[in-house]
């Protein structure tokens, strides 16, 4: 017998797992990727999808509540601000002449 609480917990776990996974991928990307643009691309995934899903998981887990409203507002703020910051960083780097990484011929890595 599956109760409403079970479904809620399952959704919470899935969303939190997705969030944690994106944080992991983003962090690995931040360390491993070759240049500023690629690293920015990886880092902004953490804040948008990662923090977004974690906050959604908390909202689902919390149920209908004033705190849930605050969490959703927070998620909206993160979704709005993080891509903007990524865009501003990449744009500033491009305008000041940071050259993107290119694979050299004859080398595979």
């Amino acid at each position, binding site marked *: 017998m599956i109760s409403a609480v079970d479904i809620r917990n399952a959704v919470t776990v899935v969303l939190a797992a997705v969030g944690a996974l994106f944080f992991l991928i983003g962090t690995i990307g931040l360390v491993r990727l070759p240049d500023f643009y690629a690293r920015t691309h990886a880092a902004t995934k953490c804040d948008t999808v990662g923090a977004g899903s974690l906050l959604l998981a908390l909202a689902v887990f919390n149920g209908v509540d004033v705190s849930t409203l605050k969490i959703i507002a927070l998620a909206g*703020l993160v979704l*709005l*601000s993080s891509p*903007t910051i990524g*865009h501003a960083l990449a*744009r*500033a780097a491009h305008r*000041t002449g940071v050259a993107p990484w290119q694979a050299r011929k004859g080398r595979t890595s």
Partner: protein
Amino acid sequence: MKKAFVAALLILTAMPLLIGVAALPPHGDPDTPVHTHISARYLEEGREEAGADNIVTGVLLNYRGLDTAGEVTVIFTALMAGLAVLISHKKQPEGDAAYDAAEAAAEDAPVRAPVSPVVSFVVRLLAPFIALFAVYVIVNGHVTPGGGFQGGAILGALFIALTIVLGRERTRTLMPRLAQPWMQGAALLTFVGVGIVGGALTGYFLGFPADASLHLARKLMMLVLEAGIGLGGAAVFATLFLQMEAE
């Protein structure tokens, strides 16, 4: 001569501090007032006595109000020192050297890119919400974590974001030239003002009336202090940013 004077000043300042630190009881001594009764008293009676639901704020503004006044003085002094360094750094050599220096600076100066429309839109969209949040953090500081220092930082950051997006000409109206010194010193001035009011009520500088019937007066004094700290903090951030941006 100047170096000797600076050294003498440093030693004169350091001596009382070192003597004061040496006179402190050993760290973790169980017989100090903190461990015998003060913490317990703050936690048990702080809410009613200090007039703040948030114990941290009660300790910060009421019990340890003088310390916080000192802290605010330090921030104000840091602003003065920062401005002094920035302004003296800007001093140009005279004559032909000045011309050469100006020319070199013009060549070195990065070309300022126009503000991205995306950034501009998002900052303008979020600005009222950030302003509201800053005021909420300042005003609600005696109930929830937060207060003047944190809210002031948010307000200052908002000012900086708006200056980047809208240009300093538009945001300058937020800090009129005549009001600037008052805003920069707002935190310190508020502490002096509230301190004198508290002195009139209790006989001690920065004293808070302890009577239960004056609960509202205590709350009001805290609110004024928080607002002063917030405004002063924001003005400090804004001033330093404007001065650095002018370089």
